[in-house]
């Protein structure tokens, strides 16, 4: 790694911090501008109790003061504050609980999708126009175009209700199998198609022809030259995809009742649980920014021709 690359990375990290700060600021003020507050319910609490609660959580102070106090707390103490809705639990605790499940779900789904997608895509490209290739293309087209709530519901009805071989509820380890499959199918299909087209492109390149002409063995061409270069677009896709799966699995979490971060995030907005909204937004924003950064850096590592500047 040369100094130019290092400089680039430092610059990118600076930009990432700036991005997260902008996200924090916008979310903070937009959330407060939305009508309704955390202590509002179908049955109204007394004005006295409302005032007492607002004083307790500092919501009675000027908005700018609350904003700077919040920034200070997360910077100096890494403290996201208490949840206003789930009394007695801290935001950090709730996010940690949710992330544990979401990360497990997302990472397993993403790597399964990567493994299956690369293999299927490579095979389809090598056996171009064969029955196998066509079958893979048809199936992946179906998976790419089918929304996850339909796929999830189908799997749920089939495996949990009709066949009764897997639980419908994501509480237990076994209960995570169906959500993982549901989450993995779309990226798997996408990676298959990506690998296939990029592999076909690479196989037609001059350097592959040259290698063939020089008598390099078929296997070596595929693994040593073709696949390696064909995977570059897959790698760029993988980072953001991982972040997307971890953060955007809300629908799947609902269908299978998985206690993940997506559900906690949406609930916190409905509840106007301000510290919780801020906490989840920050964590998710960081995750996306970091994954994008990692994939850009990987890109450079895999393909030295790419100039990061």
């Amino acid at each position, binding site marked *: 790694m040369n100094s130019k690359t290092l400089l680039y990375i430092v610059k990118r990290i600076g930009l990432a911090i700036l991005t997260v700060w902008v996200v924090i600021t916008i979310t903070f003020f937009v959330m407060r501008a939305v009508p309704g507050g955390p202590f509002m319910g179908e049955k109204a609490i007394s004005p006295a109790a409302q005032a007492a609660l607002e004083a307790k959580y500092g919501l009675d102070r000027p908005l700018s003061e609350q904003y700077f106090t919040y920034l200070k707390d997360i910077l100096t103490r890494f403290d996201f504050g208490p949840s206003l809705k789930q009394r007695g639990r801290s935001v950090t605790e709730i996010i940690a609980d949710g992330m544990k499940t979401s990360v497990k779900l997302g990472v397993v789904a993403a790597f399964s999708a990567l493994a*299956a997608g690369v293999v299927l895509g490579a095979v389809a490209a090598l056996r171009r126009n064969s029955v196998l290739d066509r079958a893979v293309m048809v199936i992946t087209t179906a998976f790419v175009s089918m929304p996850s709530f339909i796929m999830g519901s189908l799997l749920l009805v089939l495996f949990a209700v009709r066949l009764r071989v897997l639980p419908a509820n994501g509480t237990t380890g076994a209960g995570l199998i169906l959500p993982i499959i549901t989450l993995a199918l779309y990226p798997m299909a996408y990676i298959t198609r990506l690998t296939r087209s990029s592999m076909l492109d690479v196989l037609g390149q001059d350097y592959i022809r040259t290698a063939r002409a020089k008598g390099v063995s078929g296997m070596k061409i595929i693994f040593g030259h073709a696949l390696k270069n064909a995977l570059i677009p897959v790698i760029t896709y993988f980072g953001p995809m991982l972040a997307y799966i971890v953060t955007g699995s809300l629908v799947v979490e609902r269908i299978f009742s998985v206690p993940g971060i997506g559900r906690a995030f949406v609930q916190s907005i409905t509840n106007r649980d301000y510290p919780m909204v801020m906490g989840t937004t920050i964590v998710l924003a960081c995750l996306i920014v970091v994954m994008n950064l990692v994939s850009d850096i990987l890109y450079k590592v895999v393909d030295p021709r790419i100039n990061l500047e």
Partner: protein
Amino acid sequence: MKKSLALLLALCLALSLAACGGGGGGTAGNAETTPDEEPNVAASPGALAACLASEPDSIDPALNSSVDGATLIIHLFSGLAKWDQTADGTLTISPDAAEALPEGVPNDDGTVTYTYTLRDGLKWSDGEPVTAADFVYSWNRAASVELGADYGYMFEVVKGYKEISEADDDGNPVNPDAKLSVEAVDERTLTVTLSNAVAYWNELLAFPAYMPVREDVVADESWATKPETLICNGPYTITSWTHDSLITMEKNPNYIDADSVTMEKLEFYLSDDENNMLSNFQNGSWQLIDDVPTNEIPKLKEEYPEQFVVTGQIGTYYVCWNINEDILPASSELTGVEAENAKAEIRNAITLLFDRNYIVNDITQAGQVPASSFVAMGMTEPDGTEFYKNAGHNDAFAGYYDVSEDAIESNYAAAVETLKKYYTFDDATQTFTDFPTLTYLYNTNEGHKQIAEYLQSALAGIGITVNLENQEWKTFLNTRKTGDYSIARNGWLADYNDPICFLDMWTTASGNNDVQFGKGDHASVAAYSMDLTPYGYDINVQDGTWAQTYDVLISTIKACTDNDTRYQLMHVAEDLLMSTGCIAPLYFYTDLYMLSDSVEGFYSNPLGFKYFMHCVVTAYG
């Protein structure tokens, strides 16, 4: 460099393979830890699995305000009284931590004092004794301003509540040293003084807010979020808690009536997705689910006739008008009291246009009962009859208008006749031409939407244009509360079996006064009369404002110690409320759940709390 590239790729593939195996590995691990759990989908033997809703905001008895949270709390805590089911299936309130529930002794100043003796040998789940002082502490805590509990007002009946609940604008208590009038005479004797006799006092004693907590336990603010810190005194303790997912309770050996608890273990799954609940019920994993997808109801009723249960729940689904909304035609010259009376007549006519039978039979489909009065079905009078049947003072039907299917045509004709007095009716099209456009506000929800669309079409039939506006929950609450609407969807569930909880919400200062009675322009409208002299009060107001009539009436009811008179006054209050036409009741709620036929000994109360401690599960899967 090439080597490192190859390594990287290999690593990537290896990781993906490992990840692939990871999914399977997780399953294998799970099978190892619970080898008996076969097949995967069945509930663990000896346990009863239920899903009521997603995780409640709190299961601290004082802080909880949800029905599902209350169900969890009654399994963990034991108050002075409890809901019990007798052998013949009727529900009663019986003593729990108290030896008996004696009558109160009236004092000279009109207050009433109750003295309770705690049963000998009451223990917390950590073995410490439960004392009268625990109750004193818990009740003062629950009612305090500092705690800011939603249900703090449940202690309104106890003497001293007013002093303890007052706060200045900054939320600091006005009387920091004030206490409720409840005292621990000794370790096992508790006295409590109520401002006046309260018919539903025993019921309050069985309500979660009245259940005891221990001072040293609740000092840790997170006490009610972890199994290890949640010290309780009821039939069960929490043994494991995966937040937002599963609460497992096991029988509490320190509970005084532990012998009567038949279910060793309860599993409360925390989810609010009805489709997921139904899947888990259908595959035999869960024995009770508290909600089902609305569109599945007709099919479920047919497929599970025994297991699809509909019971009464004390609550009313209704439409409320903003009393300050001008609905008179632009040409109208009516002002002041005349305008208000005309608006009341118009609103009361419009409510006759709704076919409540269509709503309950074709839209909600869960056995709801068409409503024509506001105080819900299930509220009983001192003589045991239903309050709603006596409402409206009509012999031919219950309530303020006839909502039977036979009356639809006559209601419609009557409504049109009334509206003709104020609006231009076009005989050719049979519609009104100058009714101002209305907006119906509801919160985003498929069921509410279907009802909104029906109301829209019913009014469109006579030329009234209604625009539908849906808002996200808290935005909706805020809009409704501030009165920034013309008509809105509304609903109210009772907290205890006394009609006052439906009536005191409409006083001017009430936080639930969504109609805006006595607020804005309505504050000065002197259009209401009431004569309480037949009931022995020297109160007779003619052409008074809302504050001079309804507010006075509610405080009179709250201070009334004669139960029969009190109920008569509550009918007067409902008459006054309904005369405004601002409340258009649509139906009385029901509680709908699915209960496996392998469960015996289950019951629920009219507030929707569900009792599992005396259940037996005869078969699994």
